[in-house]
């Protein structure tokens, strides 16, 4: 680690995420404005399911979620000409969908507002790793690993090429508590940055980080559990 004095580029602090660059959205915008149906279809395929999941977090009904997302796309098209590019195109799309979801939510107050979901998840006492994995107060190094995490048997680059591993990640994200799942999906799957996620979800930077941390640690654990089993079996 010799980068102490270097300012961190987003790609670096983002742990070398594969590029899901915002620049990509500029190309999409140009293509949409030029009337490319292929570009629109690809953009829909890329974001529709995520939008539906996020909206589902508000409306808690699949048919309503689909309806709200359809409305969001129509709103997106309607205002595309006036989009000024102050944020990434996808961020803007998510904002439209979230606004529609919130409007729908206000009509149907049976469901829990997202802010309540966020605060209940953030306020829950939770640690990333079972405290039993660390040395107790009488150990030679209290609060340090008693036995560190086992390295994974496979190379992560190889793992990323395996559909099964990626499916496992998808499933693990799917089982996260709703606010954590939404934040991780937006950040790590859909490629929004933290500022965008805070804006889209209307949450503070601190809460976003807490939710993201808990989410990523749980997904890591799901992978660790699987690869531990794999190692034991082979």
């Amino acid at each position, binding site marked *: 680690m010799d980068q102490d004095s270097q300012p961190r580029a987003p790609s670096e602090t983002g*742990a070398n995420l594969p590029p899901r660059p915002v620049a990509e959205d500029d190309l999409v915008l140009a293509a949409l404005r030029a009337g490319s149906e292929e570009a629109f279809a690809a953009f829909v395929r890329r974001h529709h399911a995520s939008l539906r999941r996020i909206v589902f977090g508000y409306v808690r009904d699949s048919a309503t979620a689909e309806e709200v997302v359809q409305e969001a796309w129509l709103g997106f098209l309607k205002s595309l000409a006036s989009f000024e590019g102050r944020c990434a195109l996808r961020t803007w799309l998510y904002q439209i969908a979230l606004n529609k979801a919130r409007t729908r939510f206000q009509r149907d107050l049976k469901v829990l507002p997202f802010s309540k979901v966020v605060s209940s998840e953030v306020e829950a006492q939770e640690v990333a790793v079972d405290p039993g994995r660390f040395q107790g107060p009488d150990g030679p190094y209290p609060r340090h690993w008693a036995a560190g995490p086992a390295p994974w048997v496979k190379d992560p680059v190889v793992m990323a090429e395996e559909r099964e591993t990626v499916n496992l990640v998808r499933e693990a994200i799917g089982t996260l508590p709703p606010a954590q799942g939404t934040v991780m999906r937006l950040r790590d799957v859909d490629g929004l940055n933290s500022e965008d996620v805070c804006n889209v979800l209307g949450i503070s930077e601190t809460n976003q980080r807490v939710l993201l941390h808990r989410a990523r640690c749980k997904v890591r654990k799901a992978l660790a559990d699987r690869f531990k089993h794999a190692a034991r079996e082979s």
Partner: protein
Amino acid sequence: MTHRDPDMDCQDFIELITEYLEGGLAPDDRVRFEEHLEICSGCQVYIEQIRATLRLSGQVEPEDVSPGALAKLLDAFRDWKK
């Protein structure tokens, strides 16, 4: 070289990983974090696994859109183009 007990312990390190990766740690804390990382093999494994988790998440493909929904949106796009 004698073992120097670092300021940061593993439990604190784990809970600060996301803040570190987000570039949100104060400079002093970042130094303590990186010093701990230098000497702690368990935390090196853990943070690498978090990085791998992020890379894998970036590979998750969007789910399929139902053909009906896509067709409706393409119709709307054609109308919009007019």
